[in-house]
């Protein structure tokens, strides 16, 4: 199988599309941002493929700049998300609803996210005592 330009374009479009869909559907800020980055990677593949196709380096140069800019954006994203997390302990975009049209109700999920239940911390057997195997363990041994 020869790999033609169209294969690259298809992969790029798929990456871009997945990123777009992910960006629009996911709720975690970091995931959303990564989806946007994924879109950028799709673009990068496009550029590289076209660069090869046209036999010039313009596309590759473009990719380098895309990467650089993506890195800058990632840096800013990280800083922003850290400060967001510090303030509200959540990176869920549905928590970002303080700014909205007057009189619009909060957008609520039909089935809200189930927050994991905190389990009580386990404890060790006090020093000196033999650990008491559970019935299950006894049966297994």
């Amino acid at each position, binding site marked *: 199988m020869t790999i033609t330009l169209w294969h690259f374009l298809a992969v790029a479009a798929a990456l871009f599309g997945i990123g777009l869909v992910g960006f629009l559907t996911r709720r975690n800020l970091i995931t959303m941002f990564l989806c946007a980055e994924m879109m950028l990677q799709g673009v990068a593949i496009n550029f590289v493929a076209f660069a090869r196709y046209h036999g010039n380096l313009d596309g590759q140069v473009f990719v380098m700049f895309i990467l650089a800019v993506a890195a800058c*954006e990632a840096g800013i994203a990280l800083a*922003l998300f850290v*400060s967001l997390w510090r303030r509200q302990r959540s990176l869920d975009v549905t928590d970002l609803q303080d700014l909205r049209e007057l009189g619009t109700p909060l957008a609520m999920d039909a089935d809200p996210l189930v927050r994991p239940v905190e389990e009580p911390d386990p404890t060790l057997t006090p020093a000196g005592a033999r650990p008491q195997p559970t019935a299950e363990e006894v049966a297994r041994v």
Partner: protein
Amino acid sequence: MTDPLLKQTLTGVFRLAVPEIALVATACAVFLFGCLYNRRWLWFTVSLLGVVLAAVLGGVLDAPAPELLTAAPLVPDGTAAFVRWMSLISVFVLLFVSWGEVDRTNASEYYGCLLVAGAGVSLVARANDLVTLFLALEMLSIPTYVLLYLPARNKLNQEAAAKYFLLSVMSSALMLFGFSYLYGLTGSTNLTVITDSLTKAHADALNPMALVGIVLVIAAFGFRITAVPFHFYAPDVYEGAPAGVVAQLAFFPKVAGFVALARVLGLLGADVKHLPFDSATQLPLLLWILAALTMCVGNALALLQDNVRRMLAYSSVAHGGYMLMGLVIASSLPDAAGRPDVGGIDAVLVYLAAYGMMTIGAFAVILFLSPPDRPVEAIEDLAGAGQAHPISAAAMTVFLFSLIGLPLTAGFAGKLLLFVGAFSAPNGTPVMRNLYQVMAVIAAINSAIGAYYYLRVIGVMYLRTPLRTPSRSRAVPTFLASMALAGGTLFFGVYPEPIVAAARKAAPVPAAAAKPTAERDAK
């Protein structure tokens, strides 16, 4: 590869960006030494000097135009010069405006970011290459992200920053995807080559790839100019973000978006070239729909707002729609019969300048009237400002009247040009001609609708008694900036000729085939 033209082009490019380099260098210095001395006035002065230096360099240095436009990453055409001056002046003003909300711990970063963003705007107008264009846009966006959460004091600031950031990143991705297809079709990232080859090579058969590409690009720029399907972030961000930053945010991305859109569509320059659209209908029609939607939705939603900033946000959406009219006109020019007197782009430039003055001014007044403990948010917060702060209120009134488009303010000159343009946009097909006139009528009706909510603010300021004791704001530079902007708005309202002449010089009306008009034929 030793083409002397090429060498001249590539070596001469640096001279084209000297003022921007000066700006960025100043920003670097401010960033670097800002961590050593936390002095607001010091960095303020240094930044001002940087802007002045850039302006002097821009005025003194006579950079030769590149010989080989198909290889030049930057072009020094009139539009670029106009936008450069616009961005330098607005950075200058914004430095004053933001005095009210910069504190000494982040002064250097704030001013540095502002300078870089200004350089970005200026470079957007200059870019003749997709890479340069992209980088210039990011030079504008990235400092803006930083600015958005640099003075962030509360949750709303952060929320606004996060919203703007995510959507902006996504719009960048959309734009890049469009760019990649444009590059793929033409094999070059040079805009001259792209517009040229797409017009010539694919004039008959439209490549769907070009369509996808250009639609994505228009959508992405739509984010920056808050065109309607992409406007939804604007009100939230304007409401949540610090006022000084919003002043920048309302202006810079719009300038960049419009100029970049015009550049990518090949609408700048004396001879208009086009992407492979049927310029008689398709591209103008697309932009037409965008413009009409933007105007109507922006104005309609602004009517519902109680928050000044949200109201101004929707108003900025609506103004984006008015300015899109200019692009519609410009995009229809290749089919022009005769040489119209308004080319669209010049109208957009004039309107942008006017819009910059009035919107930055409005936010400057809001910032000046907002002490940190009691920011102006609801329209009612301005009640009685006419008595409490007569001068600021008068300035605000000037800005609002200008936003309405009343005569003797700069906003009127802009609207007049757009209307003249919309009527004179000549087109072969009568359908489109009627559509242009309908567009002008829609814009007129929208201006009247817009008057309703602007007038509400004026009414609240003057016809109500104050709800709270007047606050004493000490941000004198902010005040000065708003005064200067009000003065400018009035001056260019009374005598718009200088700015119009400059815009026309910047974007001369393209020469089309000089067909005599139908009226002349009839004679």
